[in-house]
């Protein structure tokens, strides 16, 4: 079964599911509304043997990045940080890559959510155990909450960390290590 057929099959139950306009190169890319993300993944796993979660990550499209986010890098001057350009919009884009090891297929799922303080998407914990730490990482870096995750706490940065480093408006607060 090709990914096209799988998409057509899923679209009958989830009309919000669509092909992305700007795909991830060489990979079939779909956009999923946040509310049907978990059901789509469940269906992909149980019906189409997509049993392997490669990647969970996110992009903050609000650009440009604040130069104050890089305290020790003299190379960074205003304007040298990426600007998002025409793509700038007030959203977080959560990106999932799921694959079927038996069929050798790989699908990217993209889910756009409004860029607010309490931005949240449903957690894939329970469908894929690999979501456990990867979702914690995204939470740590972007502050996106994953509803249903049993242990959503910071993973890479210390609990004293203020703010979410990969948000474009992140500003570094000097601490005792500076």
């Amino acid at each position, binding site marked *: 079964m090709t990914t096209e057929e799988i998409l057509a099959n899923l679209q009958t139950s989830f009309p919000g599911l669509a092909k992305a306009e700007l795909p991830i*190169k060489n990979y079939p890319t779909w956009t999923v509304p946040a509310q049907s993300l978990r059901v789509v993944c469940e269906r992909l796993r149980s019906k189409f043997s997509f049993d392997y979660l490669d990647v969970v990550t996110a992009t903050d499209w609000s650009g440009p*990045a604040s130069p104050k986010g890089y305290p020790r890098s003299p190379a960074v001057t205003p304007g040298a940080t990426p600007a998002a350009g025409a793509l700038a919009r007030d959203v977080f884009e959560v990106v999932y890559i799921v694959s079927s090891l038996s069929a050798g297929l790989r699908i990217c799922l993209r889910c756009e959510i409004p860029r607010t303080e309490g931005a949240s998407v449903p957690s894939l914990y329970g469908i894929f155990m690999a979501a456990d730490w990867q979702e914690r990482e995204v939470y740590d870096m972007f502050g996106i909450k994953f509803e249903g995750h049993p242990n959503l706490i910071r993973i890479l940065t210390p609990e004293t960390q203020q703010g979410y480093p990969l948000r474009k408006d992140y500003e570094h607060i000097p601490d005792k290590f500076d």
Partner: protein
Amino acid sequence: MTKETSTAIKADQMFINFGPQHPSTHGVLRIALTVEGEVVIKARPDVGYLHRGMEKLFEARNYSQALVLTDRLDYTSAMHNNLAYCLAVEKLAGIEAPLRAQYIRVLVSELNRIASHLVFFGTFGVDMGAFTPFLYAFREREMALDLFEMLCGGRLLYSYMRVGGVSADLPPGWIEKCREFITFFKPRLKDYDTLLTSNPIFRSRTEGVGVIGAERAVSWGLSGPSLRGSGVNFDVRKNDPYCVYDKMNFTVPLGKTGCCFDRYYCRMLEMGQSAEMVLQCLDALSGAELNPGEVMAKGVPKMFKPAAGQAYAHVEASRGDLGFFAVSDGGLNPYRMHVRGPSFINVAILQEILAGCKIADVVAVLGSLDIVLGEVDR
């Protein structure tokens, strides 16, 4: 980081901090263990002690400058990191490396895999109380590092690959030196088997310990030899070939039960396969069909602006499926760069498989997953 302390335990239990300064954690990993007698009841791995904010740093450098950051991820197999990064950026910018560069990339990747698995072989032996194999492993590894030094000047952090190819062609005499190394190295694999693989103490400490079933391994997203040790046939080199791996003749070793020994032995067999692939690449490179000297794609500037878009490229690194997710906004710097570190994902399963283990087996299980903390914490 986990705020795991000794407060919530019962009277007959004990709380143990394994690491972050423990030699067998191979870096700075902390595992918060709750034990009852000798049996581990609960284990919570705690990472982040080596976090350098790599993904943030990528955004403040242009594509050529960011390459040197990738070396510092998994520092025992820097070539794979360079390769995965270059493939992602090449895909983003629509660049294709010349065929000769692709052969060199495969060649150095496989050589690096040997060097990296030798570190595993040596340190895993030390973890299990056998010091001698370490000395043998590092003797051979030194030869591989000498070859890399001849190639690019670096012994550990190479930055040898460039977006669009590799920085320089093989120096004169390198192919012969490399052949000498492989000729010396291949019989050593038998030595390793007699030294460690067939050692009864080593066998009894690893066989049947830390078993990961195939279904659990897939669900937890394990990759590399840790996944193949459980008998799951997934190798990026076969399933999603990149460079010239589709022209290489090799097999993917698989384990049966998913115990520590299976993961160990998968790596040992992989070294033999890597040595074969190195020879195949050397044969191809010593001919004249691949234009000597043509190792960079034409017209790739030092600073370039890929069109706005997203790309994902992954390679089979020594520790598993290493992926780079790159987002461009059309500017000089990557707008976003995400690293899928196989060590980071492999280490998460510890919380499940350590529960029920004997405390002495914690070291065996951790060692058999072969993590590098530079990649876990990024």
